[in-house]
């Protein structure tokens, strides 16, 4: 039977260890491995592969009207940038975007502050987001045109609509996720009301708020370009969407692609430079996200 088996009693030992000299304790990784750890390199390779595939497909199609190649698009883009037309279009788009985004974010913060402090505010926020969040912003555009006429005001209206709900929803979820101990610590310091929201809730919910801002930004950018495509320009001044629409009508397909490329590029820059920097300086540094 098992219970009668006893482990052998072995002699103890104690040995003096000589310093370890056989090999260095820490070794550098091989150069290729270190290179492959660079995110920009990996992503750059993916982009290069996509551009190559695009160029190959265009060469196979051989119809500049339907699918201009990567190089043709780049030259149209360079042309547009040098002539200043694309820059002007970009400026108009970004200006409208900034206004709409800012108003939307401010409204979202107002709404969520109300929601964390009162029951009515909570009910209001959950009802409104449930109603309006699934509603596409573009669907409001005809109404906006009726109310605000052709012009920036209508665009700003739909932008606010597209930013407000996702940002409010994320911010509120972030506030609710703040640990109870941290809340008690804040109240223990005698904080209440707005200082409490500002000094405890907002920093503690920053990961969720940042992701809400990112989603809001993507929604806003998307909505803006789409809205410009639908109703175009006011008083001869249109943004990037209008540029794309106009050039499609005139069958300058390479410029259409150049406009789309710029839309993508701006999206990438905002995501990878602005938001990534913001995250690195805040939530990553504080160890709140990895």
């Amino acid at each position, binding site marked *: 039977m098992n219970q009668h088996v006893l482990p052998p009693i072995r002699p103890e030992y104690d040995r003096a260890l000589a310093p370890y000299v056989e090999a260095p304790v820490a070794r550098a990784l091989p150069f290729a491995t270190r290179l492959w750890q660079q995110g920009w390199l990996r992503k750059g390779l993916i982009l290069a592969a996509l551009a190559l595939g695009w160029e190959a497909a265009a060469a196979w199609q051989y119809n500049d009207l339907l699918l201009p190649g990567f190089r043709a698009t780049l030259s149209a883009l360079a042309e547009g940038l040098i002539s200043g037309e694309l820059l002007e279009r970009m400026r108009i788009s970004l200006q409208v975007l900034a206004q709409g985004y800012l108003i939307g974010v401010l409204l979202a913060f107002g709404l969520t502050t109300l929601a964390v402090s009162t029951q009515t505010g909570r009910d209001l926020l959950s009802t409104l987001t449930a109603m309006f969040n699934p509603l596409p912003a573009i669907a409001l555009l005809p109404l906006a045109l009726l109310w605000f006429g052709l012009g920036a005001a209508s665009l700003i209206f739909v932008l606010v609509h597209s930013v407000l709900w996702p940002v409010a929803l994320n911010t509120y979820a972030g506030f609710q996720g703040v640990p109870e101990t941290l809340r008690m610590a804040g109240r*223990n310091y005698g904080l209440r009301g707005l200082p409490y929201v500002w000094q405890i809730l907002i920093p503690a919910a920053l990961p969720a708020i940042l992701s809400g801002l990112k989603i809001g930004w993507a929604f806003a950018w998307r909505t803006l370009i789409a809205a410009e495509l639908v109703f175009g320009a006011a008083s001869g001044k249109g943004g990037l969407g209008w540029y794309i629409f106009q050039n499609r009508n005139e069958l300058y397909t390479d410029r259409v692609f150049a406009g789309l490329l710029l839309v993508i590029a701006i999206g990438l820059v905002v995501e990878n430079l602005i938001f990534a920097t913001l995250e690195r300086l805040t939530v990553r540094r504080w160890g709140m996200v990895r």
Partner: protein
Amino acid sequence: MTLVAAREALAVNRAADAPPGSAARTGRSAAPPVAMGQTAPLLQIAGVSLEYRTPERVVRATHRIDLDIYAADRFVLLGPSGCGKSTLLKAVAGFHEPVEGEIRLDGGVVRGPGPDRIVVFQEFDQLPPWKTVLQNVAFPLRAAGLAGRREAEARARHFIDKVGLSRFADSYPHQLSGGMKQRVAIARALATQPKVLLMDEPFAALDALTRRKMQEELLSLWEEVRFTLLFVTHSIEEALVVGSRVALLSPHPGRVRGEVNCHDFTLGDIGSRAFQAAVQRLHGRLFEASPEPETPSAPR
């Protein structure tokens, strides 16, 4: 041992299970605490009943608790889980409103949380992760408007030095170990110079070696600063080592079974026979099957 020499005379009361309110209490106020020399208790918990609400029912956490805590006391609430000791501590902090009775601090009735009663929680996430150690310790001073920027920083540095974390003043909480985070929380509490320091099982989430070290450090800080401490624990050994007086709470609902003096035990006494006997005695009183008729002290 030496630090409580003034109270040595009271050691007699510790052995005998003196009912609270009579010999022990009068004897205690006769031997004045070192810092103040006042006779009125600093913190009075008078007939406090606490209830909390679940979706289905209202649960009574503590029933008519009477406790007096004097300046520079290291007062421990000891009891099994469910005796409402943490709830009572949070009520003192102002997070719960008593349904009857009142809590008086320095004569004034406690209403709502405030920086004169800083809490050290068990959880490590009590430190805002977006502030460095230095900013964390200075934060309550700034938030409560107790000190200007420069004074807050100077005071914070002083107490960070006291808990031995000067090298980590500019680190963020996520870069610290659990024990270091609790040290920051203690430094933060002391820097605010509260009337009462409240600790809710502050070392329960630490490993045994770190816990022992933290208890040691807490005691030497007390020797130096002589703060008033209200300490919650479920460990009998910790209660006897950290406390100068221990209140025993019985569960469901929490009521005071008795108070015990233990100011003459230090960390060095843990192995001693007297210490083990005290542990055994408290263990017996906490885990008796049914309360004996003469012991409950809380009026029904």
